[in-house]
């Protein structure tokens, strides 16, 4: 989970661009990652990242430090990404095929964590798995398994209760195993 000092947030809220850039440098990867996993393509993820940080800058003054900054940021990122995904879904048809070209282009070059030989295959698998899940389950899987948030943090970021997080993860995993597992049908 992100940790940005209160002082940095306050300075950014007062219009200090250096402090705001510090926030961006620290958290843009998380925001972009969430946006990319929700929208499924680079262009939309970048659009979401821009919109999120412009909104963050405008709304920083209203952030009351009652919740963690990261939770607030994830919530904005998730809402913005889902809204754009829905909008684009309507524009392009019912579902958006995830961008298969992404893994092949230079996107994220040299920035991937680890150096898995099967990195590209895994990327394709992850995209396909996420695409097979409904929005709510997808959001939980992204925040829990890709971003590593605790259940409580996922609940706060999505504005849902803890049991909903558990049941969405449960259903998502059952579905993934039934679709992608050899023994899936036995479960």
């Amino acid at each position: 989970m992100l940790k940005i000092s209160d002082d940095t947030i306050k300075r950014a809220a007062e219009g200090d661009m250096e402090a705001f850039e510090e926030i961006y440098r620290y958290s843009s990867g998380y925001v972009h990652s969430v946006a990319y996993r929700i929208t499924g393509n680079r262009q939309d993820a970048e659009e979401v990242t821009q919109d999120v940080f412009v909104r963050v800058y405008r709304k920083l003054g209203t952030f009351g430090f009652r919740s963690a900054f990261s939770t607030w940021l994830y919530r904005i990122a998730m809402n913005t990404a889902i809204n754009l995904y829905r909008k684009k879904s309507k524009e392009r048809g019912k579902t958006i095929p995830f961008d298969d070209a992404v893994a092949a282009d230079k996107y994220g070059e040299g920035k991937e964590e680890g150096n898995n030989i099967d990195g590209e295959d895994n990327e394709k698998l992850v995209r396909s798995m996420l695409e097979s899940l409904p929005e709510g389950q997808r959001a939980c899987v992204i925040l829990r398994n890709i971003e590593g948030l605790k259940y409580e943090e996922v609940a706060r970021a999505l504005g849902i209760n803890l049991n909903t997080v558990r049941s969405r993860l449960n259903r998502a995993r059952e579905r993934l195993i039934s679709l992608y597992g050899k023994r899936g049908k036995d479960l």
Partner: protein
Amino acid sequence: MRCGKVRKILFTAYVDGELTEKTRQEVLAHMEKCGKCREVEKDVREIAVYPFVRARKHFPSEEVWRNIKSRVEAGLSQGRISAALERVRETMFFRKKVFAVAAACILAVIIIPRTYNNSQNRKIAYFLSEEMDFLDSLGTGNGAFSLDLGIPMEDLFM
């Protein structure tokens, strides 16, 4: 613990490390005896968790920051312009009120005496016309104020 309950836990809290130590020990004890639940646990981890944990982290291009910065700065200057316009508008609104009151006073100063004069003039005109009618009636005997005494006017003074 029975298989049904263990599997529910395996799909979520167990693989996510969100169990209390006591429950975790109970689940582990069950799995030592139950091969089917061990298989389920393996499937959950390998199929539904590990691919996501191994997923690449994606970072935005540098252009994204440049765009954000320019949008924020444009918003700031827009904000400054809006604030300046707002100040002007507020000042003008205040001045407008002053102008309106002043204009009303000026109009009052101009119109009221005129209206008064007009009404005075109308009264005088009415008085004069009555007087003229009266005098006229004295001459002809047909006016609104005719005095028909049965003798000519001239005889009255002779």
